């Protein structure tokens, strides 16, 4: 499993039928220091995570399908947990855990790196979800940026 941060959501009406009813999240896998680990991926959600949450991302297909209860479906990644806290220390001797204990406002700028903050239960990103837009022809992709 990897640690990632939910940075958005994806909507697709035309897709494989076994994907219907799945919530598709855009997840950015993270390194332990909080920096990005490669490119963001699309993962289906099985724990009702929201934008801004730190999550556990599983990258094996069968594990992802099992978590969603959809076997024989072309799914290779899923969010299987929302992280409350990370305790770790990278120093060789293991001089004790570095724990996070600051409350986040959901802003990426508040990240301090090693100690990922404790997030309140049921916390969602500050961003409001956009209402579903009608399916547009061919060039109907719309990206909503936020800063």
């Amino acid at each position, binding site marked *: 499993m*990897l640690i990632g941060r939910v940075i958005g959501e994806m909507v697709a009406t035309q897709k494989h039928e076994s994907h219907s009813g799945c919530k598709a999240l855009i997840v950015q896998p993270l390194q332990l220091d909080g920096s990005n680990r490669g490119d963001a991926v699309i993962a289906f959600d099985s724990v009702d995570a929201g934008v801004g949450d730190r999550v556990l991302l599983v990258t094996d297909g069968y*594990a992802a399908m099992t*978590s969603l209860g959809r076997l024989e479906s072309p799914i290779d990644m*899923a969010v*299987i947990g929302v992280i*409350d806290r*990370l305790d770790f220390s990278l120093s060789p001797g*293991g001089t004790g855990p570095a724990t996070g204990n600051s409350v986040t406002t959901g802003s990426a700028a508040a990240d301090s790196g090693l100690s990922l903050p404790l997030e309140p239960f049921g916390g969602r990103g500050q961003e409001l979800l956009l209402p579903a837009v009608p399916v547009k022809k061919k060039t109907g992709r719309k990206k909503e940026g936020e800063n």
Partner: protein
Amino acid sequence: MILARVVGTVVATRKDPRLEGFKLLILKPISPEGKDESGYVVSVDTVGAGASETVLAVAGSSARMADGCKDRPVDSAVVAIVDTVSLDRVREP
């Protein structure tokens, strides 16, 4: 399988119910000489490994074959605590 050392734990109360009762460990891969390699992985613990221990972790679908991991959504599991690593000495030509 990879050689890794346990560097921390992940606490997640909201998670797939099939992960209940499993400790989630943060592992840092290491070379056979003991040096840290890049990256990390979060694995379920099936052997009771503690902090700073050197372990073997298995990834991919094979992780589900570990005892207690059948039908659980895991893609990485700690399957052994390492006692010794012995490397053959390379003879210089």
